[in-house]
């Protein structure tokens, strides 16, 4: 759902979404089962980051947070334009948007 299916929905399944020879080298090295709350993305290699705005990024990010970028390296999120000013918590792949961010810091005074 977060890799192959999402790539297929975006019509990108011929170039990304699975680890196969010939596809883009979009790879994440996880410290543990990526669905575990304890897992961290240790290293990500991204040859080309595609998004709904079709901007292309060439990045290689380390284990630090992905604030301001797509929420999780190697995972396709078709809601977040790359390089947008979207403020994301990077809560292990669950983007936080709009009112949630506001609520997080308490109601407006």
């Amino acid at each position, binding site marked *: 759902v977060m890799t192959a299916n999402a790539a297929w929905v975006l019509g990108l399944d011929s170039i990304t979404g699975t680890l196969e020879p010939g596809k883009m080298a979009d790879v994440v090295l996880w410290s543990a089962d990526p*669905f*575990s*709350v*304890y*897992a*961290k993305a240790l290293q990500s290699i991204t040859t080309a980051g595609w998004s709904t705005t079709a901007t292309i990024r060439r990045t290689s990010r380390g284990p630090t*947070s992905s*604030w301001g970028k797509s929420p999780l390296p190697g995972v396709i999120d078709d809601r977040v334009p790359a390089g947008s000013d979207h*403020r994301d*918590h*990077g*809560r*292990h792949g669950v983007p936080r948007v709009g*009112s*949630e*961010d506001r*609520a*997080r*810091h*308490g*109601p407006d*005074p």
Partner: protein
Amino acid sequence: VTGRIVAVGANVTVPADAAKIDATGKWVTPGLIDGAGQMGLTEIGLVPAGNEGALRGSDIAASFNVAEGINPASNLIPVTRVEGVTYDPDVTWRRVDRRSGGVVDLDGATIEQMLIKSPVGIVVDMSEGSKGAGGTSRAGVAGRLRRVFNDALEYSRRKADYSRAQMQQLAAPAAELEALLPVLRGQLPLIVYANRVSDIRTALRIAREYKLKLILSGAAEAWEIAADIAAAGVPVLVEPMDNIPSYDALGIRYENAALLAKAGVKVSLMETETHYSRRIRQQAGNAVSFGMTWDQALRAVTLTPAETFGVAGQYGSLEAGKVANVVVWSSDPFELSTGVEHVFIRGKEIPLRSRQTELLERYRSLPPKY
């Protein structure tokens, strides 16, 4: 007393008529405690009808107790408790001075049945968000707070003069000053919401000056002065997954809870979005992935918040005599894939039903069954 834990252990005598639950291979914890949340005080954020946690119109509102605004029929309560969170402090946020309503068990038909303790503290916002109350300066907020405290102390000494109108004009109505006196006598904690190091230091300074019992909340940059906070013996409520920098907290980071715990600070975790109170266990899991030990994280969502809010004699651990808030989990409670199998609040098993399960049942097959 019913609803209490009678005995805990591997070799306890089980009465013949006791209901038995096979929890082989399962994990059993005390009901989790969210260090924030406004359970029963909010329903839908944008609909004023369901929001009772804030008082508009007055920025000194120490006499405001949110307890009577709690709606025991709130849809959020079952949604939260079926995920293992059995207890919330109903704390109200923002402005200079707000009274926190108390702490509640997430079961009960009336406010009295839910309420554990009220009040648990008076809340003061000393973050960026309350600057308006100090003439748009942090120094103004601190100065105003001291004026209010000083006037409360003077009012308490000169009530006769006050009733004869022989006092200068007070910084706040007498009822608000009166409500602050338990804080100034060190009987009731002052809960300060502050994030920037300088604001946290101001809170520590004011607490020293007036000999207050202080609780820090938010405390995003607290890790920078963890040793000082530990030395002051001040408990801290933090939100582990908060890492968005702002001018209120440029130093915000995921490791805050871990670094505070390592320095010996009494750390409790919180989920400030009440609708996601049930995710406190994921906050705890993430705190572990950023350096807290598992044991520290469990304590930070059970016994430490109970101590911080002054109810550890009854809550926060599985011990004989304590209130039987118990959860049986399918596995590690902090893991995303773990489910809740049984929830007991005050010894009563809670049906694992909520608005969400009702919607699931209605729309499981289409057309829906009305």
